[in-house]
């Protein structure tokens, strides 16, 4: 890619990696939480709902700072994770993925939850009378029916992760090759006098990636919806 410098190219590749990992790693939890909020009645449901949505409302800087307190080298969770499992978030690309996942989580859960609520819960009852346990009934009936919603949730979460800036820069800073993602790279270039031309190239890349993701999700969503509805 001749028209991008190696630093810029690194930023693009890192953003793609961070966003993909953020979405893939949070998807199982996202489906579980969406299902719990849509179908189960339990104490603390309102609190869980509020917690999930918190990153949407909090200033991203605050989320990033809380992440730093929680998952930094000496953080409540960061210290034991580093000590026992060797997992370090602070100033690593993994931290950027964690920040992106948390910021994108509410959008993912909302989208999947809406699609679960659109599925008739009595279909799972029918599955249970046919001998399917709770987990099998979910996997064989509800899951295929909400696949379009899951895809939509992943795409919107991916797009959010690609654009995540505030929490990322607060939590893992802006280290080229380590934690510098597309938005933080654009920010850095705009800080340098005369950097607009370079920034413009990254802006173009952002546009292409975002548009491509949207088109791909539209196409995929339609194909899956056709298969599911089967009309």
């Amino acid at each position, binding site marked *: 890619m001749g028209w991008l410098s190696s630093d810029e190219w690194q930023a693009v590749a890192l953003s793609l990696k961070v966003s993909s990992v953020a979405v893939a790693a949070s998807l199982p939890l996202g489906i579980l939480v969406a299902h719990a909020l849509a179908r189960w009645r339990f104490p603390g449901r309102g609190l869980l709902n509020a917690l999930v949505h918190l990153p949407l409302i909090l200033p991203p800087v605050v989320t990033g700072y809380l992440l730093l307190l929680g998952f930094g080298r000496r953080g409540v969770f960061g210290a034991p994770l580093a000590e026992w499992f060797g997992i370090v978030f602070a100033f690593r690309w993994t931290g950027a993925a964690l920040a992106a996942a948390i910021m994108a989580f509410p959008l993912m859960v909302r989208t999947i939850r809406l699609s679960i609520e659109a599925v*008739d819960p*009595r*279909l799972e*009852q*029918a*599955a*249970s*009378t*046919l*001998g*399917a*346990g*709770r987990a*099998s*009934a979910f996997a*064989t*009936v509800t899951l*295929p*029916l909400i696949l379009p919603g899951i895809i939509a949730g992943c795409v919107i979460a991916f797009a959010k992760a690609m654009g995540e800036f505030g929490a990322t820069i607060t939590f893992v800073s802006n280290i080229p090759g380590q934690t510098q993602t597309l938005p933080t790279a654009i920010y850095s270039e705009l800080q340098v006098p005369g950097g607009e031309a370079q920034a413009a190239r990254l802006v173009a890349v952002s546009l292409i990636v975002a548009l491509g993701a949207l088109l791909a999700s539209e196409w995929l969503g339609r194909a899956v919806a056709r*298969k*599911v*509805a*089967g*009309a």
Partner: protein
Amino acid sequence: MSLSATIHHRLPGFTLDAAFSAGPGVTALFGRSGAGKTTLVNAVAGLLRPDQARIDAGGAVLTDTARGIFLPPHQRRIGYVFQDARLFPHLSVSGNLEYGARFAPRAARPSRARYSEIVDMLGIGSLLDRRPGALSGGERQRVALGRAILSAPHLLLLDEPLAALDEARKAEILPYLERLRDLGLPILYVSHSASEIARLAGHVVMLDGGRVIAAGAAGDVLSDPATATALGQETGALLAGEIAAQDPDGLTRLSTPAGSVWVARPDLPVGAKLRLRILARDVMLATAAPEGISALNILAGKIERIDPAPDGSVLVRLRLGDDAAILSRITERSRRALDLEPGMPVHALLKSVSIAEIAPG
């Protein structure tokens, strides 16, 4: 296999307090909407956790609140055909049918031959590749029946499987239900239609306001004056008969325990067994053998009991021979004019007789 259930469950504005048992064959749970029929079958299926209940099937305890036993629905092996079919929209017809077989225990899993047999019996062979969205209401119910049977259940629950269908579709499904009954699987059949029950059920459990008001053989329950309020215009008796002769003028003579009855149904062979349904409103009474009257079917009997009905009429139960009884609904004024009392011999004039069912074999 037999099922016995005692269920107490409180819902807002409604209390279900019912005990019943069901043996092999078709047992109908019968009553008006809101009588508690669906609540009852949901409790049997395990879709509802009753406040207090003991339900066992073939010796296995499904629910016993006193001992804290509640078997989840997927371990009960009870097939359930819902009023709205509830086919899985993302699976084809064959996918839906195979879903039923997929979770059956290995030993009970239907063979390829059994699968085709059920598909043929229900006449759904040409629909296998279709999606539920592309099926008619009657086709959907047939697929739902097949799906439930292929899960190899010990008991089948049918919750008003015909209620959402028009008359033509009902007529299309009923023969399949008769074949299903003849498979020998115990069936609990929920309905508010007396004619469906007269046609299908051997036993009837009648519910009203969450309580069992009558239970027993279909003929007895349908002709029990205690059930007349719940049945309304549908009150009537069942009479078993056998085709005795085909008369040349197109009428068919049936021999019944109550005597000979003529019906216009010439397309059945001599010896075929039938079940006749005689509605109480179609039976007139005479104290002497009537003469000069166009009615063909006149049966002699004795008044067994007389019960007042809430609308000012009275319901007269006649004993006809040893093994048959019919009901007649007349006005209180007629009763007084004829001075009818239990024990009096009378003649019953049947204005109309309908064939409820053609018995198998």
